């Protein structure tokens, strides 16, 4: 029942949505596109018709108060959360279509969680090699080589054999980023990646994310770090009560907010 409107808009994507965009013209097709996305949990209407598109190599930050629906939106992008209605297009293909193989979709979409969600029974390198071997079918040697490269990239090559419980929150989160990157994702989702960290550990994680952005990774980032949004994002989206309230370049959105809601939000966030 939820998939019917989604599949309709999916099959008509070339005509209805981005107009002239065709699948061959990758630069014109958004990496992520949400069309009329709704999500309800029972009677709680969390997302009320979201339309958004993230271009390839773009860094989009989602900001807003807790409960505004930003995390739910992010989780709909790889369908960890099932949209109630609407379409989610990844590289122009509607992934809410019932025929869609989600496991294949998710290989290409790296995700980083607030609570890290490292596998506690595996070492850092075990975490980074597991899905490479089991999902991509890489050999032990190859997955190890990639894992070491990724751990170096996040500055943790010396922690390869440590278990998550032996690592600080910031280190765990960077291993989680390495784990996602090892799958060679086309895009990355960050769900409040620094919210569970002690303040002094936030910087290390943000540095890795900034580095990733400068390398041209397509990123959709739910964050409370306004400094990061201002300096790193290409596009900032302010969500409020399940709708996109205001969006645009960071300087415009954060510098001169036009809606009273965003003004209030920014005052509260920047007060302290």
């Amino acid at each position, binding site marked *: 029942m939820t998939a019917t409107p989604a599949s309709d808009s999916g099959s008509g994507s070339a005509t209805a949505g981005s107009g002239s965009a065709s699948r061959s013209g990758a630069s014109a097709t958004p990496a992520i596109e949400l069309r009329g996305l709704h999500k309800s949990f029972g009677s709680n209407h969390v997302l009320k018709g979201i339309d958004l598109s993230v271009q390839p190599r773009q860094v989009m930050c989602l900001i807003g108060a807790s409960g505004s629906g930003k995390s739910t939106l992010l989780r709909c992008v790889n369908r960890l959360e099932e949209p109630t209605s609407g379409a989610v297009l990844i590289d122009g293909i509607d992934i809410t279509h019932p025929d869609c193989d989600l*496991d294949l979709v998710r*290989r290409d979409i790296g995700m980083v969680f607030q*609570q890290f969600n490292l596998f506690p029974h595996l070492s850092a390198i075990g975490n980074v090699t597991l899905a490479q071997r*089991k999902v991509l079918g890489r050999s032990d040697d190859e997955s190890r080589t990639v894992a070491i490269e990724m751990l170096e990239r996040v500055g943790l090559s010396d922690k390869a054999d440590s278990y998550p419980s032996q690592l600080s929150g910031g280190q765990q989160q960077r291993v*989680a980023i390495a784990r996602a990157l090892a799958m060679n994702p086309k895009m990355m989702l960050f769900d409040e990646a620094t919210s569970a960290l002690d303040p002094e550990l936030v910087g290390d994680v943000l540095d890795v994310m900034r580095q990733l952005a400068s390398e041209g990774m397509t990123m959709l980032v739910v964050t409370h770090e306004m400094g990061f949004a201002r300096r790193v994002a290409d596009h900032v989206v302010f969500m409020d009560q399940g709708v996109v309230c205001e969006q645009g370049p960071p300087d415009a959105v954060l510098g001169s907010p036009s809606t009273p809601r965003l003004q209030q939000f920014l005052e509260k966030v920047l007060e302290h």
Partner: protein
Amino acid sequence: MSVEAQLGESDLPELYRSGRAKAARSKRNRIITYVISAVIVAVVVAYGDWAKIADKYLDVERAGELFPEIITIATKNTLIYTVGAFVGGVTIGLVMAIMKLSSLRPYRWFAITYIEIFRGLPALMTIFLVGFVAPTALGVRFPQVLGVESAGIIALSLVAGAYLAETIRAGIEAVPKGQVEAARSLGMTQGQTLRIVVIPQAFRLVIPPLTNELVLLLKDTALLASLGTTAASVELTKFGKDAFNKDFNGTPFVVAAVMYLLITIPLTQVVAWLERRNKAMR
């Protein structure tokens, strides 16, 4: 310290006086408990007929005759029954746990029915059903496996499987949801997620209750004394009973009991250690 010692009791603050009074009271209570215990022990020692007890239950010569068979056959068989039923029980329990968590209703119903039946029946009844009813009613013949009766292993596996299903299900449900989400976000299938992320963690969580079930199983093998066994496939309790039946001297039971304790006490220590370690790991 020295200042306080010089002060009289009445000069002490109320807090100290009250504290001293409580300490004195608990010391007095401790002494009373020791005295009563000592009296009980003294009475038992004085009035017990030790010569008769030693003769009937602790006859060294009779105890010696039990060896080496009590180790090489009876204890060995008890361990084979225990480990066999444990492996069978964990296997059944894992399958039932997964079925009970399935989104498909028939699987859930099957698992619930199984669990309710075999947890609801007395273990001895299950042993009779498998050992006596199945062969006569269904014509099933249970061969000897590893020198023991497979019917015994099967019956105890069925019982243990029902209990372990609930234990393992609880373990699976205790694995945080974020673990599943992380695995799925990496492109793992539902089956892969269960197999290589959830179940290994679930088992880690339930190692203490699992080991506890092993101890319970070891003791439940005594129920197999009621099963038809041969001299070679006998377990510890039946072995003790057969030896007792020769001249109704209780020594074989005492020796068999010691054999059980030699296994169960270290095992319960292992359970306690595992529980402490699990707590520390969190």
